[in-house]
């Protein structure tokens, strides 16, 4: 009885071993790699025939995007959306194919590693190149996974001059925007956009630098890009004796005697509670004399302005016992990003190219 069981166990383990070997061979095979590459190619191609939902998009924009897609594709829309064809490169099908390619490459690489010493003995450089390429593919995919899991970004941080923003998650650093200028050529065309920034550790300035287009700042694992700028106005309000007055804006900005307001929406409202006044400020067109603003001063709760005129930047206006001065102070839009997978991704991509080159060109020489 026990002998029979032993024979059965042996035959079972042999079958299991055969099954394992068959599965391993199939999963590590070049045939599977070919199928996966073809499928990925076709799927990638189909994604270019339909609009793709942008990755960084808020809920409202997303709903609007899908409404427009429905308008464009009509009765086909529901079918296309159910197949995730509008988000193809994030779809389970695409990611599953990539995962399968990863497994295939990894198993194939294990097989190649087993044969590495034989390759080295025979001085087969092309085989070594292929091995490097495959290891690089695995490293590349792992690096992408690290990026997916651990990268973070703040895509639009708007800072006026002197304003600060925490630099990253859990880092005791602050980013302060110190200034912004546009360099222009003789024809008045912009030749560069430059933002001046300071990195602060508490009150201590640790680094002062400028950021240009195509030249982000790298600091403590965080990259800072200059993305764009928005019109802004720095409003200075004092009483007749020159004492600063408390100011409150509708956007939540507040200060004593001075506040900076974002004019990207066209109009900014500022309250001077102690004087019972409201200031309505909008941007006027830029003239040769410099930046100008439209300023309206009203008693709170009334509709008739005490003053409504175009004011040049730096010009002092006296109205209803207060002195108002407006200065141009654009908001600079920064992008903050930290991606621990970026460098490994780049290095593995370079290794991939190096391995491929070794494989292809040593093979050509060998043939010659």
């Amino acid at each position: 009885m026990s002998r029979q069981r032993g024979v059965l166990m042996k035959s079972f383990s042999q079958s299991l071993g055969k099954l394992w070997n068959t599965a391993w061979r199939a999963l590590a095979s070049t045939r599977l790699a070919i199928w996966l590459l073809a499928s990925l190619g076709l799927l990638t191609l189909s994604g270019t025939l339909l609009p793709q939902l942008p990755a960084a998009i808020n809920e409202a924009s997303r709903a609007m995007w899908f409404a427009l897609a429905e308008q464009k594709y009509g009765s086909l829309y529901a079918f296309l959306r159910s197949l995730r064809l509008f988000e193809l490169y994030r779809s389970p099908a695409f990611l599953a194919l990539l995962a399968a390619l990863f497994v295939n490459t990894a198993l194939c690489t294990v097989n190649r590693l087993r044969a590495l010493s034989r390759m080295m003995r025979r001085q087969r450089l092309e085989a070594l190149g292929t091995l490097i390429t495959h290891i690089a593919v695995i490293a590349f995919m792992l690096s992408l996974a690290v990026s997916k899991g651990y990268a973070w970004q703040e895509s639009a941080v708007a800072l006026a001059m002197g304003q600060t923003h925490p630099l990253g998650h859990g880092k005791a650093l602050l980013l302060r925007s110190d200034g912004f200028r546009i360099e222009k050529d003789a024809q008045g065309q912009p030749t560069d956009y430059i933002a001046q920034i300071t990195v602060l550790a508490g009150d201590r300035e640790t680094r002062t630098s400028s950021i240009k287009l195509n030249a982000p700042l790298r600091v403590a694992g965080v990259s800072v890009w200059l993305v764009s700028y928005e019109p802004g106005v720095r409003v200075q309000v004092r009483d007749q004796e020159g004492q600063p007055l408390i100011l409150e804006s509708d956007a939540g900005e507040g200060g004593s005697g001075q506040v900076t307001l974002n004019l990207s929406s066209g109009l900014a409202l500022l309250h001077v509670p102690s004087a019972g006044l409201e200031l309505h400020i909008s941007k006027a067109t830029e003239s040769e004399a410099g930046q100008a603003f439209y300023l309206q001063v009203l008693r709170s709760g009334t509709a008739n302005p005490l003053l409504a005129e175009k004011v040049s930047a730096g010009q002092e206006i006296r109205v209803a016992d207060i002195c108002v001065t407006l200065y141009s102070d654009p908001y600079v839009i920064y992008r903050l990003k930290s991606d621990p997978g970026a460098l490994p991704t780049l290095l593995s991509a370079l290794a991939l190219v190096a391995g491929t080159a070794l494989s292809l060109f040593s093979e050509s020489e060998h043939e010659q």
Partner: protein
Amino acid sequence: MNGPELTAYTIASIALAISFALYILSSRTPHVLRFTLPVSRFTNAIATVALLSLCLGLAWRGIVARRWPLGSPFEFTLAFAASIILVYLSLYKTTPMPLAGAIAILLALLLLAYAFFIQPEAARAIQPLPLVMRGIWFALHTLFTVIACGALAVAGGVALLVLPSLSRAARPAPNEIKGSSIVASVLPLPALVDRAMAVGYIALSLGMIAGGIWGEQAWGEYWSWSIKETWTLITWWVCTFYYHVRRRRGWRGSRAMCIAVLALVAVGVTVFLTPSLLHWTRLQRWRIY
């Protein structure tokens, strides 16, 4: 376009036309004008003149515009033509066959015709580039990409040329001996396709890496799945596919050549059709992205 630049492109066009005629003549009438060493040297020298003229024209354009001269579609098309000649002349010694030269030069001529007769007049004017298109990584990205395009075009063009003969070799007619006549004459060409594909694959990979670095520095993104990027990736998939199948039983020969032709098609779509695809897939009134 200024005088010296136009002169350079005119010289390039004439030189290309002459070298094309000579390559064709050499391949069609081997007994009258055999493609012997002096003739091949002369033909290649003329092709080199075309290459240098195109490069000088582009360099002049760059000097006048004070920028890297591979920024507009017109400039890229001219550089694409130059790259085809460069790749062919570099690989010529591996397979010195006039037919391959003829097809490479024909492709370069077609590109010049496209640049001067199909692209709109405005596209030929020297324009300033957006500020973001500057720096060493943008320059490297366009340089590697244009070399890749040239190499894949040579590979695809030559593959297209060999395909019928390889198919015939695989299925010879009853009265035809396998490996005879025309079939035998094109047999070395797949080796040229292989090398051109290798150059294209490596250059394309380097171009994608340089483009990724440029994108990261400019926008903070290595990759954004734009239609052009995606078609570049498709071209890369096709090249990867080629290197996985070219030695496999059932894929050697004509099937592998079909993949090389597919790489040429992918390059064509990437360079010329992506703006139309973008227009086609754009959602109406969607202005945020």
